């Protein structure tokens, strides 16, 4: 399994380098994408220094937590996002035939991904941590990797849910787009600015707030998190991630069995 995956990395690398402008440009795009997000935050907070008690340093760190989880997800689990397309063009049926757990097979499909985003995310996270003045103690070193991985699981789970819906609805592009936009843009700000309904949704239904907001409240020593929750709740992200992913996986298996049962 690992050999197969490693093999695909080599192909990715060769393919990416062959189309030289391609590779450089897509890396440039990654930089621009994240760069404009942070630049927007900077500009806004330059004129309006505080948002619900959060300043630019806080927001920079907030973004860093999300970005790292997102980068890991996109680099490692990009296959899942393509499932709706595979179902549409019949490629998915080929995977069902392989002697591998289907989800693993999906993840192992080679794509165009090169770890430039991951490298950028790591670099940015280090800089943001230093810049925001967060205390890098034992708890930090121990918990941050777990929190980030928990965040990755949350993003993976949501993609899995959308992929499962594709078993029934085939065209889920619009849904996927909306959900991703919700994840990417709403997590840039402390969720305290949203109305109560949205806060509850982002905490207990699609727990994007656990990807970065709640952990950030803890590490930045904020006095209180949204919904009156104590900041230490932020350390629960790994658990939240596992639970949410577990639920998504159950849903996935359910959908998969229905799909196989219907007969193709």
């Amino acid at each position, binding site marked *: 399994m690992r050999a197969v995956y490693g093999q695909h990395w*080599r192909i990715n*690398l*060769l393919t990416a*380098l*062959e189309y*030289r402008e391609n*590779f*450089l440009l897509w890396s440039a795009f990654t930089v621009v994408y994240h760069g404009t997000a942070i630049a927007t935050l900077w500009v806004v907070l330059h004129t309006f220094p505080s948002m619900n008690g959060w300043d630019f340093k806080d927001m920079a760190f907030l973004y860093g937590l999300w970005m790292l989880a997102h980068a890991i997800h996109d680099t490692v689990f990009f296959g899942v996002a393509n499932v709706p397309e595979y179902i549409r063009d019949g490629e998915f049926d080929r995977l069902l035939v392989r002697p591998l757990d289907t989800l693993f097979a999906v993840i192992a499909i080679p794509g165009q991904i090169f770890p430039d985003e991951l490298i950028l995310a790591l670099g940015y996270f280090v800089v943001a941590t230093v810049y925001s003045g967060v205390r890098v103690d034992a708890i930090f070193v121990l918990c941050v990797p777990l929190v980030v991985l928990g965040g990755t699981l949350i993003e993976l789970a949501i993609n899995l849910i959308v992929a499962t819906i594709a078993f029934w609805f085939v065209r889920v592009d619009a849904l996927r787009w909306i959900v991703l936009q919700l994840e990417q843009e709403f997590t840039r700000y402390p969720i305290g600015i949203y109305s109560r309904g949205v806060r509850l949704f982002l905490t207990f239904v699609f727990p994007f707030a656990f990807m970065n907001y709640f952990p950030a409240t803890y590490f930045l020593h904020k006095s209180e998190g949204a919904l009156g929750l104590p900041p230490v709740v932020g350390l629960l992200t790994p658990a939240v991630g596992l639970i949410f992913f577990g639920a998504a996986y159950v849903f996935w298996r359910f959908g998969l069995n229905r799909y196989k049962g219907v007969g193709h």
Partner: protein
Amino acid sequence: MTIIETVDLKKVFRSVVRRPGIGGAFAALFSREYEEKVAVENVNLSLQEGEIVGYLGPNGAGKSTTIKMLTGILVPTSGSVRVAGIVPWKHRQQNGQNIGVVFGQRSQLYWDLPLRESFELLRAIYDVPHDRFAQNMRHFNEILDLDRFMETLVRQLSLGERMRGDFAAAMLHDPKIVFLDEPTIGLDVVAKEAIREFVATMNRERGTTVILTTHDLADVERLAPRIVLIDEGTVIYDGQLAALREEYGVYRTLVITLAENYPEISVEGAQIHERDGSIARLRFNRHEVTAETLIRRVLDTYRITDLAIEEPDIDSIVRRIYTEGYRAQPLPIGG
């Protein structure tokens, strides 16, 4: 009147040299090497209005490149080209009005529209007067039977249907010249015949000049008295098909069905090309012995129940030229 003229037409393509392996791929990030390929060189063509010319050659010989220069898509590296008096790539708009094109491999119809709407859009593009448009559509429908699938989306048409649509589209604006690039590829025998009939009719009724590139030599035999042969970017033959057959097609074949089981056959002046039970194929050089003489000799020696004469087929003639190169004296261009 000369309607197409090229003088020393030449086209060179530049492409990047790929280097193998990961090391090469990395190196390519920093520097690149180019290689040049001469696609077409020294092409001198002269076509008269109303001619039908077959433009033949193996894959990669430069046929498509030449056609693309004549239709204004590619700009020649050097040399000159004039189609209906204008330089195609310089005056694309004007050139577009003078020509019609059918690509066998790609449709020019609008993929997401019903066929009828595709034609209406083309009418607007080519500024075809409404009555002429109606007249043409009626005429095309008679020959090509389009009404059956006029309302179908173009992308849902079968290959044969789509090709017929493309032909109608190419002729819709009464172009002076029509370029047919592999027009019968993939079609069944009936469809091919319909297409050939259409082309012959258009040429006869309207005097449309036709340039036909194809791999199916039956197309050429049916339609084009004159052929231009191109190989590796240069013209190696330009003349009448009949003359080519005369030149190269010296060998005819007499096929006889023997009445008895003769163990051995031998006839003066002929070579036993093949023997399969009671069928024997005798090859003879038309310049050395006439068919009449040979038949008499056979009848004098053997008892037969049936005989037939096979002409040299254009396929093998052209194949020989491709592989061996053209060696006879050059015939006057235009035959």
